[in-house]
């Protein structure tokens, strides 16, 4: 469980993190969403104990980052944005080094290394120099080092950045599998990534918290993009036809839907629309709409 209370961090005169509070329950995956320079990395660095906050508290499983740094460091696994690897070591040597660094007992190191190599599918590059492995393997190695000491909390800074689509899918699968053993926070500026992987999201911009959203919330809204403007009558007919829909509005080619409960199956609604002659181009998950709403509301305030 991660608790962040009124956290602030100042660099020179810039408030990189400004009074941020949120909570992540045990065994959940939460996303940090926001433009570059929003304060995502700084918040994560505070949670790992790398940077001390100027104000506020951050607690991991009830332990204050400022009070018992060593316990925090043992509990947290961290993948920084730039994967911290030593090119001149082999994959095996590197993982053994990280295991030792985390204070694993000598006789458990071999087992721990085997476990993460299997979990992150690094068998093929086990004996290679880290310098010579590809970007995708390097990212997996970064994940492997983060989980080698079986941390209760995993902090992943942009875990899929710079990867090709197939690699992104692999990494996402891995992150989802971590949920069994750890609470995970990951940062991203890709909305689809957050919707697919996370149970909740914290939207940050310029160091401030704009919104806290859960899967339930964004699951309840949906945007359907059509090829041509959607007839208002078709939109109006949706709520009476489908009891799960609480509201439907057409805005040009955009059809906004709100649900009472996150829908299990969208197919009946999509089929209904197709039968009415709507040519569907894209279905956008609700997070995007909520994200834009939060960002726009912020800009309106500014």
């Amino acid at each position, binding site marked *: 469980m991660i608790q962040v209370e009124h956290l602030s961090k100042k660099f020179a005169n810039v408030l990189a993190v400004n009074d941020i509070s949120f909570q992540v329950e045990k065994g959940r995956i939460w996303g940090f969403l926001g433009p570059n320079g929003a304060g995502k990395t700084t918040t994560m660095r505070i949670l790992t104990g790398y940077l001390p906050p100027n104000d506020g508290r951050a607690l991991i499983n009830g332990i204050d980052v400022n009070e018992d740094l060593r316990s925090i460091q043992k509990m947290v696994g961290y993948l*920084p944005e730039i994967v911290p690897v030593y090119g001149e070591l082999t994959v095996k040597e590197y993982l053994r080094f*990280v295991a030792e660094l985390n204070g694993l007992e000598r006789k458990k190191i071999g087992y721990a290394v085997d476990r993460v190599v299997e979990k992150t599918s690094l068998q093929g590059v086990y004996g290679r120099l880290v310098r010579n492995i590809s970007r995708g393997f390097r990212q997996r190695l970064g994940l492997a080092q983060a989980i080698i000491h079986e941390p209760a909390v995993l902090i992943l800074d942009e875990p899929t950045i710079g990867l090709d689509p197939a690699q992104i899918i692999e990494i996402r699968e891995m992150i989802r599998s971590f949920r069994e053993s750890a609470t995970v926070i990951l940062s991203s500026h890709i909305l689809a990534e957050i919707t697919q992987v996370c149970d909740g999201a914290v939207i940050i911009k310029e160091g401030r918290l704009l919104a806290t959203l859960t899967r339930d919330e964004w699951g309840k809204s949906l945007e359907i993009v059509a090829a041509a403007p959607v007839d208002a009558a078709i939109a109006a007919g949706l709520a009476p036809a489908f009891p799960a829909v609480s509201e439907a509005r057409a805005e040009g080619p955009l059809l906004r839907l709100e649900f009472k409960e996150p829908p299990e199956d969208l197919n009946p609604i999509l089929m209904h629309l197709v039968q009415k002659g709507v040519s569907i181009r894209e279905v956008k998950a609700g997070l995007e709409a909520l994200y834009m709403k939060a960002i726009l509301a912020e800009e309106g305030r500014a």
Partner: protein
Amino acid sequence: MRSVWIIAKKELKTYLYSPIAYILTAFFLLVAGFFYYSILSWANEQTMRLLQSGYPIDRVNINQMLFEPFFNNMTVILMFLLPLLTMRLFADEKKMRTEELLLTSPLRPTALILGKYLAALIIYAIILLLTATFAVFAFVHGNPEVAPLLTAYLGLFLLGAVFIAIGLFASSLTENQVIAAAVSFSVILLIWVVSWVGESGPGAWRAILTYLSFFTHFKNMVTGVIDTQDIVYFLSFIFLGLYLTRSVFEFRRWR
């Protein structure tokens, strides 16, 4: 202790897998070998002259004529080469962002610093041992005293250990290896020559500056004199270098 060795082991691997250690060793031996050869030629010539003028052969001291100038010359090479050995220790971790891995692990900064220091010290000790092969020739063809030689080697080792501590500190200040090397070289050089300024000053001033200079303390050891004062001087310098490095980590954390 185990955590110090974890870091030292990794550093040693890094040294041995990269060309730095080999190249530095090769150049060190090359230049030291040249010095040894030229001093030996000079010593031969002098000995001949002395003998021709009727000087008794058993009064010719090979330690004084060969090894003292040789070790004094070796310090100059150390001054240039050791900053190159230490410059990457922390600067490279910062540049490659691996520092984040080390500082978010449960490892204490003190263990990190000591581990890196130990690794550089081991490499240096190996280089120093290799120069001992020069002395072997002296033993084959002559009859030098062993004790002063060992004292001089202890002096060289301690002096190098101080240089490494200074280099480690310089490396912790920047992510640029060239800056780290330049800083450590300048600091070492300044402390070396600080006694020059003292020579013309008032008594107390002169005493302090003379005491501060590496030269004063190394000079004693090269001539075979072990004085606790000199050992304490070198050890306190090492401690100071390591302590300052530790402070850099503290300071950066709370800045």
